[in-house]
């Protein structure tokens, strides 16, 4: 695609989606739950894009910041219930990191409802559907994130 064609594109145009919700999920629980949801034909919003991580403990805060600065309207993080981490404490590390990140998002003008951390076990396909549906509708209420169109420094 040449530059001028590229310029005419609008965010979401290629997918026909009004929202971009990124779900950064743990391989051992939430991703497996998504598999289960698929097998049992449970639907979740098509605006959600799942990105699989080996553990929520490997989600650097920069990944989350990058999602928002590149125009994500919401970032969902799904990990194992406390005590169930495949690597013992990755989910707990993710939790304390996100706790510390929230004031930074606030300073950047990103409402805290745009970032959600949930614990979803491998067998909780139904919970995955509910959480992603609920989160997406909450993000929709906030509207598109302003970083999407903004020329950032």
């Amino acid at each position, binding site marked *: 695609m040449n530059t001028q064609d590229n310029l005419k594109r609008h965010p979401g145009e290629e997918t026909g989606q009004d929202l971009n919700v990124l779900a950064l999920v743990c391989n051992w629980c939430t991703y497996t739950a998504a598999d289960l949801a698929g097998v049992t034909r449970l639907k979740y919003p098509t605006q959600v894009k799942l990105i699989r991580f080996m553990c929520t403990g490997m989600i650097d805060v920069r990944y989350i910041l990058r999602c928002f*600065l590149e125009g994500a309207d919401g970032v969902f993080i799904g990990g194992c219930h406390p005590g169930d981490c495949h690597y013992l404490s990755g989910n707990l590390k993710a939790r304390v990191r996100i706790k510390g990140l929230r004031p930074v998002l606030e300073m*950047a003008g990103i409402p805290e409802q745009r970032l959600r951390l949930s614990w979803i076990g491998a067998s909780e396909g139904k919970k995955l559907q509910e959480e992603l549906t609920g989160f997406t509708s909450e993000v929709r209420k906030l509207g598109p994130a302003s970083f999407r169109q903004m020329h950032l*420094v």
Partner: protein
Amino acid sequence: MHNFTLIKTKGDPGRTVNSLLAGLVEKELVQGVLTLAVGPFSSLPMPSLLCSIEQIKNSSPLAPAAGVSAAVHAARISRGPEKFRTAAVLRPCELRALVELAKLNQARLENLVLISMECPGRLENRRYLELRSEHPDLDVDYYLHPDLQAEASGTCLSCTDFIPEYVHLGICLLGLDLKQEIGISWHQEQGEELARVMEFVSGQESDSRRQAIKELEAARKNAWLNLQEKTAQEISTPEGLQKAIGDCLGCFNCQRACPVCFCRDCVSSREAFEQDPEELYDRGARKGSLRLPTDLTMFHLTRLAHMAHACVGCGQCSSVCPSRIPLADIFRTTGASTQEELGYRPGRSPDEPVPLVRFSEEKDT
């Protein structure tokens, strides 16, 4: 506080502190002193490692300047073997930064005698040099004239942590007639030991001193709350943040000057940040244009995310910014919420672990 004594100053409180520091070396309690000193070619006091008694007696421990944060240098000097024991004279913010560095294994506090002072604030380097040409005795006059203290950096004027906490010897300056006397307080086992060797006699603190501390606390708190509110209001929107950092050149001075930003190889300065021309064109095409250098919002937010919990509020980031971005205001305001959220106060004590390693199944921090 009862571990407190008064020392006669004979007009120059700085010289009194010098004699005290020289005493530490003469009694072989330390091998050297890290404090501010003026060199032969500039009037700007810079942190210096002083080994000779003569040099120590000519140093400027109370000079209201901090050309750079001395914390990183104290940390570096302390990493040596035990035969190098150093007395480090630090501002309260530098002391807090040093304690943070010690938690991250960047400093060995057992090699240091920690000395700090009640800090009315530091002048920006440029302002220090200007005022010094008008007041040759600036280092003394500064403590006697409130109008000179009002010239301190904006960060200092809204700093509420002006009394050192994790310290062995404290230099007490508030509410005293410094032409006559200064106070010395001592803390912790090391402080007690030093007081014994230096033969300090415990005395009473006056009410006027307590009153002066209270008054300064109230004024500073007021200024800080105003600054915090203003920063939260003006900056914490997507547009507000962009306006605030809009002039950023990407020089990374703020990161280098930050005493607690300790990585030797910063993630922001690594090659991973570099993009090939195709990627730049792709990003430019998406929004029609791309400001260069790219990703400075990402840089500042990353620094906030990494360091806000440890921000000691020294203001060096603002001081070194060529574009005068109010970085310290942004950092301190964000840091205040992060620190409250995590129940953490940076620099309080080396025994308090950094919040990111305090996690448990039940709850964090």
